């Protein structure tokens, strides 16, 4: 499993945890436990996304266009990533 796939898996798992906590917090807005977990995973998620973006290019258009080139379409397509 290439490093980019591992990074993507990390992003996916933290994203999933955030979604679960989002659902829980919707019905338990004052739960401090859930809030602290949410903030913890938000940090981890952001760190993993930043690392991925710096190494393999933008994940979402929020990350695209940082430097002067529109590198959004220049990187490999997601299905090609496993190929190289």
């Amino acid at each position: 499993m290439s490093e980019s796939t591992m990074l993507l898996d990390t992003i996916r798992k933290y994203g999933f945890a955030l979604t679960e906590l989002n659902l829980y917090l919707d019905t338990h807005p004052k739960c401090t436990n859930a809030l602290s977990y949410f903030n913890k995973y938000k940090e981890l998620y952001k760190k993993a996304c930043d690392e991925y973006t710096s190494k393999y290019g933008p994940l979402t258009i929020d990350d695209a266009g940082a430097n002067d080139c529109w590198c959004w379409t220049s990187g490999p397509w997601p299905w090609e990533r496993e190929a190289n």
Partner: protein
Amino acid sequence: MDYSYFDVIKSRRQPPMANHMMSNMETSGRFPSATPLAMAYVPFQTWEEPFDASDALQAGTLFPQLDLPFMEEGYAR
């Protein structure tokens, strides 16, 4: 859980009690006899130690109490 709704129906053959308060302590079948029909009750979820993030993705939920894998016999644990 050998719950069957028909036990509830069967056990409530006796005429409806005049005073609800007095009867709702006794249980008939799986619910207190004064349990109204067709009103669902879902216990409110409380916080518990969540799964680790990778286990959560595997289990499909972050919360152990919601990890209810489908059993062949067709009921949750």
